[in-house]
């Protein structure tokens, strides 16, 4: 097997284990903000979109697909992080107090 592929598979496996370990410890209280933030994080697809939309040698019809993908993932990034923070600000122990 190509060593690049092998490495990618290892990264996937290890990242999944880390994900399971970290997510399992998230309080149930915060599962909605958790889903919002992981949503924003998975909009990392933006990387692929930028490469295709703004790269050196792509033909126009390919670039259009990249731009739509860029629009979609950038929307997720902006709304995902903002709404997570908005929700987290509401969690207080004392009414009117700080989060």
């Amino acid at each position: 097997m190509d060593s690049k592929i092998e490495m990618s598979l290892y990264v996937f496996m290890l990242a999944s284990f880390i994900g399971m370990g970290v997510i399992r410890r998230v309080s149930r209280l915060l599962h909605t903000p958790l889903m919002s933030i992981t949503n924003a994080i998975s909009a990392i697809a933006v990387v692929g979109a930028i490469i295709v939309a703004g790269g050196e040698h792509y033909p126009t019809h390919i670039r259009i697909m990249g731009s739509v993908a860029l629009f979609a993932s950038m929307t997720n990034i902006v709304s995902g992080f903002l709404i997570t923070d908005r929700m987290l600000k509401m969690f207080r122990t004392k009414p009117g107090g700080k989060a």
Partner: protein
Amino acid sequence: MNPQLTDVFCKLAYLLATALFIFSLHWMSEVKTSRRGVFAGSFAMLLAVAATWVSNGSPKFYLWLVIPIIPAIVIGVWLSMVPLTAVPQRTALSHAFGGLAAGLVGTAKFYYWYGHEQNQLTKFIVTAIILEVILGFLTFTGSLIAAGKLQEIKWIPQRPWIYKGQNLVNLGAIGLALLLGVMVIMNPTSAWAPWVFGLLIIPLALNFGWMLVLPIGGADMPTVISILNAYAGLSAVAMGFVLDNKLLITAGALDGSSGLILSIIMCKAMNRSFTNVLFGAFGQVQSAGGKAEQKSYKSATAEDAAQILESSSSVVIIPGYGMAVAQAQHKVRELHDLLTKRGIDVRFAIHPVAGRMPGHMNVLLAEADIPYDKLIEMDDINGDMPQTDVALVIGANDVTNPVARHDKSSPIYGMPIIDADKAKNVMVIKRSMNPGFAGIDNELYYLDKTLMLFGDAKAFVADVVKELSGGGGMGH
């Protein structure tokens, strides 16, 4: 800067972003550090975007990047301001966007390589592209339907939509897409590959998505959203394999495992299995519930309720989505404040599927300024229920139905419930005795110690609050 150096900086930025994403989720584990998690996550994203832009974007084509980003920011800000009851549909919509982005990038890469660098189309890469595209596009249409159901758009049926042989058609569609995918993987550079890819595989994936979600009823949406979340994450992982990018693989895997864990929690909370949610069509069993038997129940007024609450020393409020629909959260908080001021211990029992997505009820109550240390998970509060003076059910139904414990013929048998029936007194605020959406009669309502409080949740709680704040002056 010379290209080699740019490349080194880009790779290091990706490495740092990867670490920050992991820390971001780690900090989400408790409320105190959670906002730091958002900061770390957004900084990591900024880093990744900037690094990609600098190392891959060509100045000639900057406009292609700027034009989509501007409306994305505007719409993103707008979407982040939706009311909290609408967060589930916003989440579903963002899964749709995530799926669309993955599907489009995969498609773009396939056609570009097919036309210009056919040697890139190795079996591994094409496999990853096929998975990315199928997962991405099915997540896209499936999530759009889920968002539509949650938003209660008229032309999308709320009730499960079922026909004979449905599962066969669905499995056939995805099976055919995978089979064609294997054909393309074996012959990626053949003359017919782009046609099969664009005219068969993509449409099949798009169709499978909506056909999969449309039959699923509104009550199962928390699970569906979680599963779609996992799919969106996995499509990002596949994109990482396609682009040989470890940052994408890691971030996608984090999202995928989050979706998986939340799906498992949701399934356990309803005592269902994945396959049962996806192919079981919950709605079918329910029509059998129409027993004509008239059982007797007791009802009471706001004044009675206020007196009982006043003379108790511990109260557990069990909220359901009906409370949020009636917009009663703020009145419930006033009730909580008044009772707490009198030295009564008031807590909230939160069932995992109390809202319309995992953890939804907590957010709705936190918005109403209810201290989060009063929001107790089902498993932690059930042990205290026998010592509780009053269990007050507001807008919740099935999650308090004792039938789930003992009646094997009930569709909700085996579902974990909040033990409202074990409290010394039970009060249920409800519009009428109508069994409601799921159509299952709730045994709790006919217990000797249960008082039914009929009325709109918001108006009724407001009346109770008025009685309580009126002190001894009124009513007695």
